[in-house]
């Protein structure tokens, strides 16, 4: 695009940039350089833990050669940001923890390898809550991320959601075309919702977990964070794969999600779970939810009320299952084979205890202690075994609901982005951020957050759609219908680049 400004380049969608590259209207180097400049100008947002400009330009040049030779992959030359939970060979991977502060993986995660195989360009590693434990990106060892969005007539900094807060902020601020995230209880969908972006958590098993720093292995799943539903479809198609290195990755063909987007929702049965109309839900969240049901109805969908009776037990169930798995997964950080080691240990026990005590932050320690407690002798049956049974009941709720509908429609979050520090004093208040998203992880289902509109104060709100297992196609088709009707075009003012 001769004469185009770098602003035009960074505002592109993934699909738009892909088509412009294929048509040779722009080069990957030109596009990548524009994002590198945007990332530098956006350093005040603290969205990146590690910038990889040199690597990005090398990858971009290689992509331009392949584009010229007509050997382009599905994501050829497209600059992406990678959540710093995905191991990247030779590039520091921290999980936003002091304990992994200097860790340089000698291997690549399967998801990122899939992206590089498709020709994508790595711009850098994005900030997150430490070990993905948080809903505001405030537990990061590298400091909080600032949401590009501010309320009308306000200079107050807001959180970008979490745990994939660096990724959501980077996408919303046009610091990348799209980003990867991971979602254990809402960590893709909640940050997407509060930044006006699209976030998709695929079905458990759709993407390989190999090389992703583990939090809660039965819940963790990687997914795309993008500007549009189409972009999410494109990125997921490259991220997903069956992988011999992850025995829980599922051996199902990856559909061409992009080709089914425009199928429409005529005759689609959209379930509205009545238990999600929780007490104290803000009026604009409830109003947007009703409006979205009307949008889908106007496009020919059938709206049905459904019941998920165990909804209120999902969060407490999650706060037993996830810490239990985390306490086990995080046992590997012992100051011996890799990671932070405390200075001058007296003996081996002192080495373990102080390396972990000094290396893990407060929220991670809290969850390790919860997990250790609920798994300890005498408490296992009362807590962990009971939570596992509750999980069965929660999954059965969804199975029953999906007998009368094809997708579910809910709000993504109980409210818009909140102020930095507003919810850090009470862990429970922070945990409630995930009240609408956590059920989906417990049942292993796919869910997507799509921007629905702005609050009266001018902050984005998201709508969540939940699908049947491995039915991301229908989920994306419904999401496309919501996106079309919402016609969300608002962008944050670029105050940070001033």
């Amino acid at each position, binding site marked *: 695009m001769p004469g185009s400004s770098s602003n035009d380049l960074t505002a592109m969608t993934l699909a738009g940039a892909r088509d412009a590259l294929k048509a040779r209207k722009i080069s990957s180097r030109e596009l990548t350089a524009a994002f590198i400049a945007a990332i530098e100008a956006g350093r005040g947002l603290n969205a990146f833990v590690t910038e990889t400009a040199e690597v990005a330009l090398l990858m971009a040049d290689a992509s331009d050669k392949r584009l010229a030779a007509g050997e382009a992959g599905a994501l050829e030359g497209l600059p992406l940001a990678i959540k710093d939970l995905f191991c990247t060979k030779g590039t520091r991977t921290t999980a936003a923890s002091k304990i992994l502060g200097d860790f340089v993986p000698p291997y690549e995660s399967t998801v990122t390898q899939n992206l590089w195989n498709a020709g994508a360009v790595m711009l850098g590693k994005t900030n997150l809550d430490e070990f993905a434990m948080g809903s505001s990106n405030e537990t990061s060892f590298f400091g909080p991320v600032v949401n590009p969005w501010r309320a009308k007539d306000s200079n107050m900094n807001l959180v970008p959601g979490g745990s994939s807060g660096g990724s959501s902020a980077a996408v919303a601020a046009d610091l990348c075309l799209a980003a990867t995230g991971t979602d254990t209880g809402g960590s893709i969908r909640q940050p997407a919702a509060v930044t006006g972006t699209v976030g998709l958590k695929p079905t458990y098993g759709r993407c390989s977990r190999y090389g992703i720093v583990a939090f809660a292995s039965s819940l963790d799943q990687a997914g795309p964070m993008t500007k549009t539903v189409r972009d999410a479809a494109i990125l997921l198609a490259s991220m997903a794969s069956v992988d011999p290195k992850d025995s829980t990755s599922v051996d199902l063909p990856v559909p061409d999600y992009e080709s089914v987007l425009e199928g429409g929702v005529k005759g689609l049965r959209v379930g509205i779970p009545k238990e999600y109309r929780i007490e104290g839900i803000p009026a604009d969240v409830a109003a947007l939810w009703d409006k979205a049901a009307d949008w889908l109805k106007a496009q020919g969908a059938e709206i049905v009320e459904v019941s998920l009776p165990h909804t209120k037990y999902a969060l407490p169930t999650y706060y037993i299952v996830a810490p239990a798995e985390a306490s086990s997964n995080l046992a590997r950080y012992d100051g011996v084979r890799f*990671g932070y080691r405390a200075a001058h240990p007296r003996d081996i*026990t002192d080495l373990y205890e102080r390396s972990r005590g000094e290396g893990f932050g407060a929220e991670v320690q809290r969850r390790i202690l919860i997990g250790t407690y609920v798994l300890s002798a005498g408490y296992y049956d009362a807590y962990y075994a009971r939570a596992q049974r509750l999980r069965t009941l929660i999954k059965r709720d969804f199975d029953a609901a999906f007998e009368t509908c094809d997708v579910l429609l809910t709000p993504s979050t109980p409210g818009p982005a909140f102020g930095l520090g507003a919810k850090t004093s009470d862990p429970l208040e922070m945990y409630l951020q995930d009240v609408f998203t956590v059920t989906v992880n417990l049942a292993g289902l796919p869910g997507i957050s799509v921007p629905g509109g702005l609050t009266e104060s001018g902050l984005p709100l998201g709508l969540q759609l939940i699908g049947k297992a491995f039915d991301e196609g229908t989920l994306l088709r419904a999401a496309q219908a919501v996106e079309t009707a919402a016609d969300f075009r608002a962008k944050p003012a670029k105050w940070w680049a001033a």
Partner: protein
Amino acid sequence: MSVDKDTVRRIAKLARLAVPEERLEPMARELNGIFQWVEMLGEVKVEGVPPLTSVVAQKLKWRKDEVTDGGNADALMANAPGGEDHFFTVPKVVE
């Protein structure tokens, strides 16, 4: 069931986590808040409900029991905070 200072000390020991003495009491309060909230799970009858061990119905895959990787001791040692030759080092364990 309530968590006190001594319980926090005990589970911190099990978790091999050094929690400073002055943090034990506040941590006990925080954990109590969380466990009191979790108590609501006691309302639900779970007798006869099997525990969910896998969200996706899937047979565990089999593979051949053979060596597929290895010979990369240098890479394995590259991130070790203490290491000599191809050995991880720790404080003396046996007198």
